[in-house]
């Protein structure tokens, strides 16, 4: 044992062994992607920027202004204001999400009884202007093109 250990120490056995691992990576394929040029598509359940879904037939918002998402939101980043027309139709006047407050927990999507609010796979949210974090109804509706088809199922 002693001699074996001595030889191993003298020949830098474990250093060579370690360097062979590191050196082996010269010959292997790279695992990285060059980010701005190539992008990895997130998985369908990814919790990114929100979107409001409209009915494809009538073009109206699915949202029924029940305010469950506003209530459940742990960071209180959703603001909803609605009004009712004389014939009983509710319409959404204000639907704002403050992305700077949002913690992307996905509770709003999970709780929504009309499948109106969903989270999309948009993840590049960095911006030079703080006001861009403020999503109003128009922006949220416009983002529904990025919503995944499989959504609204748990």
């Amino acid at each position, binding site marked *: 044992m002693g001699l074996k250990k001595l030889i191993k*120490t003298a020949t830098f056995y474990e250093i060579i062994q*370690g360097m062979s691992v590191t050196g082996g990576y010269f010959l292997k394929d790279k695992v990285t992607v060059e980010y701005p040029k190539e992008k990895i598509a997130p*998985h369908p359940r*990814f919790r990114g920027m929100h979107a409001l879904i409209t009915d494809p037939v009538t073009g109206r918002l699915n949202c029924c202004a029940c305010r469950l998402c506003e*209530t459940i939101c742990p960071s209180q980043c959703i603001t909803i204001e609605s009004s009712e027309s004389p014939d009983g139709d509710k319409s959404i006047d204000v639907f704002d999400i403050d992305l700077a407050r949002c913690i992307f927990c996905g509770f709003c999507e999970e*709780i929504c009884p009309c499948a109106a609010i969903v989270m999309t796979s948009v993840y590049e949210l960095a911006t030079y202007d703080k006001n861009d974090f403020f999503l109003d109804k128009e922006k949220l509706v416009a983002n529904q093109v990025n919503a995944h088809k499989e959504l609204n199922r*748990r």
Partner: protein
Amino acid sequence: MGGAPTNGHAHGAEAVHRPTLEELKERKIRTRQRVHEGQETITVSMGPQHPSMHGVYQAVVDLDGEIIVRTRPGIGNLHRGVEKLAEQMTYHQFIPVTDRLDYVASFAMNHGYCEAVEKLMGVEVPRRARYIRTIAHELVRLANHILWLGVHIMDFGAQTFFLICFRDREYILDLFEMVCGARLTHSYARIGGVSKDLPEGWVGRCRSVVEFLPKRFDEYERLITANRIFNKRARNIGIFTSEDCNAWRITGPTLRSTGIARDLRKDEPYAAYDEVDFEVAVEYNSDVYDRFLVRMKEMRESCKIIRQCLDNLPDGPYLAHDAAHVLPLKKNVLRDSAAMIQDFMHVLRGPQVPKGEVYRAIEVPKGEMGVYIVSDGGPIPQRLHLSTPSFYHGQAVPPMFEGEMLADSVGIFGSIDVVLGDCDR
């Protein structure tokens, strides 16, 4: 507890020298004797912005030459008042906040919290959900230990290894992104189960990852275990005996490196841990090197647990059917009016919680995490206290540093795996 290590575990073919407690103490005293009393000391502040310190931990050390005489720890730079926040949120709403405790192993924190709430409410978790939780918990343990390993070896000066570890951690984060939609802040556990069922193809992908990771661990071992620089630097520093560990409430791998096989997964099984076969990783030298060995063993055991769970994964619901305490399934909410009413009741009024107090501790990657809830019957907890491992580990730093070299201090601090989000809360 304490005393000479008694829990014998198989250590491969060759006999392992198990130092007695006296030997360990002697070794520790020998390092501490380097302290010269009465000498003039200089004070150095390490952290919270020191590049080699982990997180925003501050250690103000008094130095005699290169030897640390005294340490004053400074925590609280990441304090967010999580326990107070819990008093303003329903039980369900608090789940994403638990993500932010130990952000390296978010799911473990979700799991611990949900176990406590389930104990309070008396919710029976379906078998499939328990299996999924076990798999997710072990995945998060792998992710945590891999990250710890990369950073810890970097403390001792190896740069490449950090990148190798981060590459392998990526496979696990991808699995989490696939199953719950987030890579770090999972929010995956729910009261009564998990939020989403495993997606198609996930089981196969997870199996390939746990088949392939042990090969990577062999690679790590080739790089690190015998490396003379790491051996010279990590052996016999930061000795913390089993007695010290009990005195300072140290748990997790640090405790298991002192020869005590304390692991809540074995001692008080939760989720599906009583149905899987695994060994508790134990080492005996109580130093930084043995903490590394314990974590290496634990990672292999984690792979073993996940493999068993995937093989025996039962069918059935992934969320308990319990209208009073558990959120309804989304697909039912969209179709069924009763489920929709349940949905509304849960959000607007909160779950129906009995009065009482409950404490539940589970084994998270860093140690024992306990949740203590006092309920007055309302939808929000009256008081919620969290006992997180990093807090106890962080306060044991002064006795651990005493008499050690300044250059070793970062390695010692890294070896106990403190995450400041977990510590400061």
